[in-house]
């Protein structure tokens, strides 16, 4: 229980096979704190944050015993450390910019203003190596995925899907609503010779900066 009487960040711990546990978070905002605490307190091969949960895979020791410990974890807000800030220059000329403006009931300029006015944070990665799911937009600006996903989305495309923003680290199929593309001067999103190889690793803060084509 927290001091104000609400429950803690961990709502439930589920067994996942023999060597893994799934920690369910009370809120999206608790995921980062649980991830930081898990890295500090548990020995495991992988700690994988996601939308509302953290997977602990390859846990050393008795997984069942860890499960009851974790349910009692007290996690202070200081456990979630804010990561480095990355600025990404973007040309906002995406094919879905007008569509997103209609969904938001706003102008294209207002969509761009919103995107450059928010400090995003990488909540988790998935879909492809180095693809970060960025949170920070107000919940009422969530947009559906495209009903008809594109077979080819160019590397560097900046888009929205659900409550998230994201940038495609390389060309792939995809259903995100495309707002623009990274400018040539943008840092590389994925570089296997860099540590970490993902520029947008969980915890990283992101600001989009508008540049002209």
């Amino acid at each position, binding site marked *: 229980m927290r001091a104000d009487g609400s429950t803690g960040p961990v709502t439930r711990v*589920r*067994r*996942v*096979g*023999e*060597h*893994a546990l*799934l920690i369910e978070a009370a809120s999206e905002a608790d995921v980062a704190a649980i*991830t930081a605490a898990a890295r500090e307190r548990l020995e495991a*091969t*992988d*700690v*994988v*944050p*996601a*939308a*509302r*949960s*953290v*997977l602990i*895979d*390859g846990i050393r020791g008795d997984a069942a015993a860890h499960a009851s410990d974790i349910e009692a974890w007290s996690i202070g807000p200081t456990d979630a450390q804010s990561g480095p800030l990355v600025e990404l220059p973007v040309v906002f000329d995406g094919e879905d910019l007008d569509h997103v403006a209609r969904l938001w009931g706003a102008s294209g300029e207002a969509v761009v203003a919103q995107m450059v006015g928010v400090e995003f944070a990488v909540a*988790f*990665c*998935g*879909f*492809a*190596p*180095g*693809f970060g799911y960025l949170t920070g937009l107000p919940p009422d600006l969530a947009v559906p995925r495209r009903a008809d996903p594109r077979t080819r989305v160019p590397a560097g495309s900046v888009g929205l899907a659900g409550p998230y923003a994201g940038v495609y680290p390389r060309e792939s199929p995809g259903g995100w609503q495309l707002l623009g593309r990274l400018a040539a001067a943008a840092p590389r999103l994925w570089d*296997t010779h860099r540590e*970490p*190889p*993902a520029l947008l*690793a*969980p915890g990283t803060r992101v600001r989009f900066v508008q540049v002209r084509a």
Partner: protein
Amino acid sequence: MSAIRIERAGALTTVQDRGRPGYAHLGVPRSGAADLPALDQANALVGNRVDAAVLEATATGVAVRALADAVVAVTGADAPVWVGSVPAPLRAPIRLAAGQVMEVGSPDRGWRSYVAVRGGIGAEPVLGSRATDLLSGLGPAPLRDGDELPVLAATPLGERDFAALRASGAQGGPGALDLTVTLGPREDWFRASAVEAFLSSAFTATGDSNRVGLRLDGPVLERARDGELASEGMVLGAVQVPPSGKPVIFLADHPVTGGYPVIAVVDSVGVAAAAQARPGESVRFRVHAGSR
């Protein structure tokens, strides 16, 4: 440097090792050999370290020419092996003279064959592994006829050590497709009747299976609730049930997160067996003793 040439790549031959665990939080699949015990056995039979890279052949085998004297071993599926036109032993070290071709044929039982070369395959490592990850495109491309691969240096293998390695092998091969699972983490997304059907029915491995997952046909596993599960981390052996109700067992190249509920997780012995399932073969699940 020593090398081998792929004379015939077959349906799909890739370079594999123990993969890239530890990068899942960056969106990188574990990858690595689909049948890990067969990988470990192949490396042990030629005296390699456990992290050495081997060839993983699929369904129709592979033919490899030694470009220098080499010691090799074939494990995994029960497949015929020849050196030239002479039958050679499965799950045993084999000496190849420079220029000789070793052929692995189509398996009688099982689906994937592993070919270790003493020293290990020397492809360029990516994030600490030489494994080909077909989901995210990391590691060496799938091999084609005529590709040459370097083999890392190793001390020559004396007759006494060769005999000792030879004596160590022979056991192994594809496991039974009676897979042990732990239920959950999302069995509560399914009707009780669906969980019963999952544990009591025979499923059939389908031909659209690959290194990402073994796809199964069988009774539709009906959900107890509608709506979408928030995307969550996935483990090797997870039995994910997409909206079609047809389960998929996640293998080496599985995605790191997924949004469909996982009804159960297959144990490591079962994952290796699933990696050897042939299209059309029958697969059953039974619950881990004491977990229910």
